[in-house]
């Protein structure tokens, strides 16, 4: 508009404009009420007096590209009109965020630097909707994330709380791979392990006697500590037949022991529930990942049944012949110091954390 034209127009029709400079250096005028919808611009104008002329244009932060700014202006232009109904606004918002993820991320970043919270909320929710329910591979592809975790790190079990068959399959594969990796490492340590295993099995029997009480206490922290010590010993190495059965047995047996304060050396792996299925589930990785509570698929079902039966028989025997059995077992494991001996129901022994009251 030329100067002359402007003079003819009635004063009330003159809109105020704010001068804004985008990151590419270009300067433009934006209607005041639209621009002031952005808190950052608002602050610049009010507190610093910028934007009144071309020379002191409000300069936008780096993260706001001209294209994004134009989108944001569209958003502001719509929402700053007071008379709109909630339904209208919602419908506009829904259409507004329909764009590819790259632009969505840019828009979020731009909105954030202009402190336009409603738009940040809108775009964040849109991004969350994209992420929700997708597998890591899918998410990586959509957002172009580098796949830079090592195989080991990736194989740490996922936290799987659904029964999604794909995830179970994935976890099974991961678990197998993990086993293979570990077994390659441990082939050397077989000798040392065997000794440990022998001792452990007795201790496990002992701890089996100890256990059986309902565990309401803080097991998890205890178990974690135990786990660290046993890190190299805990896993089943399928190729090592000798160890395998023992380990599996002790795994399952110890899973029956819910005992709270059992000596660390007695435990091999976690068993948080009484169900044998979950015995091998609670593999606690030392770093970040959680346990996959569904790795019951690790143990071959037939073998599992066999172990179940053995353990049940064992349990029955133990529970019936309490004092004689105790003597027998204790004489086997003379070196080991039995710590907590508490009995569920049948026996008379009680007391966590104290020496047993019967003669050794």
């Amino acid at each position, binding site marked *: 508009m030329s100067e002359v034209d402007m003079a003819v127009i009635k004063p009330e029709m003159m809109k105020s404009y704010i001068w804004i400079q985008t990151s590419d250096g270009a300067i433009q005028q934006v209607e005041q009420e639209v621009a002031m919808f952005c808190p950052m611009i608002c602050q610049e104008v009010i507190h610093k007096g910028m934007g009144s002329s071309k020379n002191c244009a409000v300069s936008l932060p780096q993260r706001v590209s001209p294209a994004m700014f134009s989108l944001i202006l569209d958003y502001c232009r719509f929402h700053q009109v007071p008379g709109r109904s909630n339904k209208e606004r919602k419908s506009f918002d829904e259409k507004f965020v329909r764009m590819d993820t790259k632009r969505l991320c840019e828009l979020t*970043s731009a909105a954030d630097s202009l402190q336009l919270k409603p738009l940040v909320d809108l775009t964040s929710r849109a991004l969350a909707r994209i992420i929700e329910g997708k597998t890591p591979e899918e998410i990586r592809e959509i957002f172009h*994330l580098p796949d830079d975790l090592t195989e080991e790190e990736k194989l740490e079990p996922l936290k799987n*709380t659904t029964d999604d068959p794909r995830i179970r399959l994935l976890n099974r594969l991961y678990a197998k791979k993990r086993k293979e990796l570990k077994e390659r490492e441990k082939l050397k340590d077989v000798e040392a392990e065997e000794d440990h295993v022998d001792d452990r099995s007795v201790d496990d029997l002992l701890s089996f006697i100890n256990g059986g009480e309902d565990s309401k206490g803080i097991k998890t922290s205890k178990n974690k500590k135990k786990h660290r010590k046993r890190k190299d010993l805990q896993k089943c190495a399928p190729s090592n037949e000798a160890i395998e059965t023992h380990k599996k047995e002790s795994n399952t047996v110890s899973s029956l022991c819910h005992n709270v304060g059992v000596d660390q050396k007695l435990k091999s792996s976690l068993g*948080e529930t009484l169900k044998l299925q979950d015995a091998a589930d609670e593999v606690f990785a030392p770093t970040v990942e*959680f346990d996959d509570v569904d790795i019951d698929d690790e143990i071959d079902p037939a073998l599992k049944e066999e172990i179940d039966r053995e353990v049940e028989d064992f349990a029955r025997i133990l529970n019936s012949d309490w004092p004689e059995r105790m003597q027998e077992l204790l004489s086997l494991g003379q070196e080991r110091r039995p710590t907590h001996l508490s009995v569920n129901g049948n026996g008379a022994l009680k007391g966590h954390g104290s020496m047993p009251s019967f003669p050794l």
Partner: protein
Amino acid sequence: MDMELDRISSLPGHVVDQILSVLPIRDAVRTSNLSRKWRYKWSHIPHLVFDTQCISITSEDQTIVKNKLVNIIDHVLLLHNGPIYKFKLSHRDLLGVSDIDRWILHLSRGSTKEFVLEIWKGQRYKLPSCLYSFENLIHLELFNCLLKPPLAFKGFRNLKSLDLQHVTLAQEVFENLISSCSLLERLTLMNFDGFTHLKINAPNLQFFDVGGIFDDVSFENTFLLTLVSIGLYVNGINDRNVSRGSSSKLLRFFVNLPHIRRLEIQSYFIKYLAIGKIPSRLPKSCVDLNYISIRINFNDLEENSVAFCLLRSCPNLQEIEMLGRPEEQAAVGPLADFWGDDHWKCLFGQLRLVKIAGISGIGSELDCIKFLLSNSPVLEQMTVKPASSEGGWELVKELLRFRRASIHAEVIYLEP
């Protein structure tokens, strides 16, 4: 090149937190498997929500489900790194109270601002004493809990919103709780026991929603209270109270609610208001009241008197809702001519919308409708919905006849 394309990882921390907070906890935690940068991003999310939707564990055995749930929450809490502003626990399979105690203890060491705990099954869960040391608590929501704070408890200084449903607490505990949380703005109480006298001393209270069994309601210092919704779930007002000629509950109720804007009288609360001498109008009009909803037995003289007193004392009503109690109306004989009495005119200068429901077309109901129609010059719409389709046609015939003060008024009959 990938670095350029990967824009989401470089978003500012608080924005990523926001995105992850909106995700169900499972998805949020799984982002740790995406890439190196994303390993620990989830551990800063300020909201932790563990509910039946977020965590779905399907298994027949209760023990397994419960243990998995406990396991998950333990892991998340332990691996989480940063302040937890909102914590919600509401899973239908949640039992094991010692676990919850432990988690509350963990939270009490931080600065949790919003705490929601819903125990779906079993008896009332007694909250551990460490809950009462949540200094920064702004919103507290409890379902099926027992509150017994330690003697030294001085209230939640920052609490603005309190929602207690199916709770047990002693009378003094309740009174102290309300009066010591001086910033309280919203209070919801549903189905409570252990106390029967609702003594509300809350200078900042704006919203009050209560439904349960109680003997008395009294407000003190509640000048900001604008929205009140009360339901009394027991139909059996002690006869002793009535005969004692006690002071009017209706008067007492309104004496400290000068700025009330919305009032909902639900269930049998109107019977409570009918106790004592019922005035013909309140000493001070409720000039700010623009919405009223009353559940009423149109055949009961006292209830109608209360309703009438209220309507007369609220000149600026914009919306009225009257809901009948059809199961009761048959018991007492029809109340003749209560509303039809000609000298009971009052002007509803602002009334635009009226909703009548649960009626059966008896005399006093129709009189009330006639009364409202002839005293509302700017009425735009009245909807009438009977309780059953019996006698619907008769009702419509009557409605058709009524004179309307407002030329714009629409009277709409809705199917039951």
